[in-house]
């Protein structure tokens, strides 16, 4: 399991997708991140002190190699676009539904 800086994550994720996608699955997991070490120290205080509730954990694996990163709100803002493009660009092996695209074109014409 490799913990990366949020800046490196997109590059590594792309590499992961490209290397093995022909052979197997690619998994991306997203979960809200809670800084547990801080929770243990301050059992009594659930709210307040340093909640660390503004982070998320993003993981990716192809079954063999695992990478992950923790991101806060600032980092998410920066990489929102990068991630969206990355996911869309790499998951392009799916079928196109021609009927719907035709109806879209007719709507656009109107």
């Amino acid at each position: 399991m490799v913990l990366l800086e949020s800046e490196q994550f997109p590059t590594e994720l792309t590499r992961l997708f490209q290397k093995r996608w022909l052979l197997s699955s690619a998994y991306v997991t997203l979960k809200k991140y809670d800084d547990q070490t801080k929770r243990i120290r301050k059992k009594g205080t659930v709210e307040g002190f340093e909640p660390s509730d503004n982070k998320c954990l993003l993981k990716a694996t192809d079954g063999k190699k695992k990478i992950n990163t923790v991101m806060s709100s600032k980092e998410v803002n920066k990489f929102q676009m990068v991630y969206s493009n990355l996911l869309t660009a790499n998951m392009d092996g799916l079928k196109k539904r021609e009927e719907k695209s035709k109806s879209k074109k007719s709507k656009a014409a109107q």
Partner: protein
Amino acid sequence: MMLQYWTWEEFSLVAKKLYLADPMKACVVLKYRHSDGSLCIKVTDDLVCLMYRTDQVQDVKKTEKFHSQLMRLMVAKESLSVALELD
């Protein structure tokens, strides 16, 4: 308990509710198989698992948008309702 949805609208609505019910527990998993040409998205809170499968390109964008929305919700300190209204 596993629930599979056949329409994106239903799935995204229920999945978002599930996340908001317990943000710390909810987990989103995207599984992409290039060889099958399929995409599967699951949202679970360890009690219930909601699943949506697709092989359509148009769903990729919806999935990725949903993924980004949840990411933003997770890191938002406040105004969850604002993030929801972006839908």
